[in-house]
């Protein structure tokens, strides 16, 4: 190479590096969302970055606000049930469960034992379905396209079970105040058992496919670590909290329904592949929870008694004046209903405490200082559902 050309080239390089350094010095503002392929729903993140490093994240919420709490005040107690489906559309059964049980507690309604079992079976099936979506999207976010196909294949079996029980595939509206809308259909028990047998080996397959894949571990271990103190400070609950090593599950700590009669474990992460509370731990905890859910469903199917499935509650029943707060372990964390009644036929005030809302605010805490590509992985690992944030 002639000397003049080398000189020219080196000059070009220095020019480039100068441009890069001015670029790095400048902050770049990126808008993630509201419509973005890696956003689960309509949420906007204003991300300030220096090069590849995230320096500030500001979540902007409210795009899916439907004013549910206000709507509750104009409907009677029964009529609000379909709205709870839409709080967290990935776990409608669990939201139904929480609302129905809250109203029952306020009004002092006893529900039949069979209904309790049906409720828990449905809630746990829905927990698996919800975690399967998480598993699929966790793959997508780290660049693996296969898991989501398998996740939805398995989820379809659960959705079929729901479809035969209540006639819908997404917004079930199956629970009623006083029990459930209809008895289990013929053939449900066999199908549910067959699903458990089919699904258990699949979890092992997932572990081989994604969980213990070296590249996936490299991509997620030690990324976006959420220390237990921060988690508690931000009222993080559910699997995200347990991934940070805090053993807190309302099904065990504040048992409701028939959970005390059932034998199951609460998986807590111990920092197997990286630090406690990292993205990989948040992922694996859900895989283990699915195993536990299968265990719960099996026991419920064995123990379910015969009998009524619904205590009749009048259509325009009036709850006695008073207030009650009930919280429940949803797939994403603690879902709470704070219900105040003034003795009328609709709630005086219904406050809904959703887990995703609390989880969103730890995202800036755990992702600033990391890479932009890690932000997406961390965001996915928190398992946020946007309608739940906004209500």
């Amino acid at each position, binding site marked *: 190479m002639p000397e003049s050309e080398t000189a020219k080239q080196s000059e070009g390089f220095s020019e480039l590096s100068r441009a890069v350094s001015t670029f790095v010095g400048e902050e770049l503002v990126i808008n993630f969302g509201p419509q973005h392929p890696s956003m689960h729903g309509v949420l906007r993140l204003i991300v300030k970055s220096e090069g590849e490093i995230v320096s500030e994240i500001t979540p902007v919420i409210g795009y899916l606000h439907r004013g549910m709490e206000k709507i509750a005040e104009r409907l009677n107690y029964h009529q609000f049930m379909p709205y709870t489906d839409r709080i967290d559309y990935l776990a409608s059964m669990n939201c139904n469960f929480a609302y129905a049980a809250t109203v029952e507690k306020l009004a002092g309604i006893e529900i039949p034992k069979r209904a309790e079992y049906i409720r828990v079976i449905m809630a746990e099936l829905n927990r698996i379905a919800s975690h399967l979506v998480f598993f699929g999207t966790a793959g997508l976010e780290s660049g693996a396209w296969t898991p989501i196909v398998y996740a939805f294949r398995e989820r379809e079996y659960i959705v079929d079970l729901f479809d035969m029980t209540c006639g819908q595939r997404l917004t079930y509206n199956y629970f009623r105040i006083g029990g459930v809308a209809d008895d289990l259909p013929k053939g449900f028990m066999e199908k549910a058992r067959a699903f458990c047998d089919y699904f258990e080996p699949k979890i092992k*397959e997932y572990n081989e496919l994604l969980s213990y894949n*070296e*590249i996936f571990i490299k991509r997620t271990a030690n990324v976006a670590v959420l220390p237990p103190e921060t988690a508690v400070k931000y009222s993080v609950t559910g699997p995200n909290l347990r991934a940070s090593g805090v053993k807190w599950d309302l099904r065990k700590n504040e048992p409701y329904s028939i959970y005390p009669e059932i034998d199951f474990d609460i998986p807590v992460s111990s920092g197997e592949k990286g630090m406690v509370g990292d993205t990989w731990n948040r992922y694996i905890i859900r895989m283990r929870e699915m195993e536990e859910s299968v265990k719960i469903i099996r026991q419920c199917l064995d123990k379910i008694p015969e009998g009524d499935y619904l205590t009749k509650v009048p259509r325009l029943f009036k709850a006695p004046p008073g207030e009650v707060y009930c919280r429940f372990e949803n797939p994403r964390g603690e879902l709470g209903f704070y219900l105040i009644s003034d003795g009328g036929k609709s709630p005086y005030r219904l406050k809904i405490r959703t887990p995703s809302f609390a989880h969103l605010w730890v995202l800036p805490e755990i992702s600033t200082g990391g890479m932009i590509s890690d932000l997406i992985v961390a965001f996915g690992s928190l398992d946020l559902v946007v309608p739940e944030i906004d209500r």
Partner: protein
Amino acid sequence: MIKYFKQIITELWSILKGMKITIKYFFAKPTTVQYPEERIQMTERFRGMVKADTDKCISCLYCVNICPVSCIDLEGEKSDAPAKVMNKEGKAMKRIKTVTKFDVNIAQCIQCGFCAEGCPTAAIYLSKEHENSALSREELIKHYAK
């Protein structure tokens, strides 16, 4: 250096392990159906589009009041010759009113099934129909009154 190659080998090995699973399913029977050529049967309890049989309706307005989104518009008129209809339990009921207007806005309906659940004569029901897209909003308001 050895560590570096070791890492590559373990990573390749875990990819191969994943590949084994994907290849297994690659040769398995597909689990999807080719809609719309192939269709799956709707379940017995499937909640599709709301329909009404106005001959059975006694204009009790139960459905109108229970509907959470108020998408049913119903008007009845006192009839001179009360007809007899069967209720859900198979008992005969007098139909004093005839329906003159029975509109359901299926764009608003959330297919919760409350109306059908409480209708004394099963006049309003949720059909198996689920392909209800239309080109205008007017088409989405279904008129069931005769």
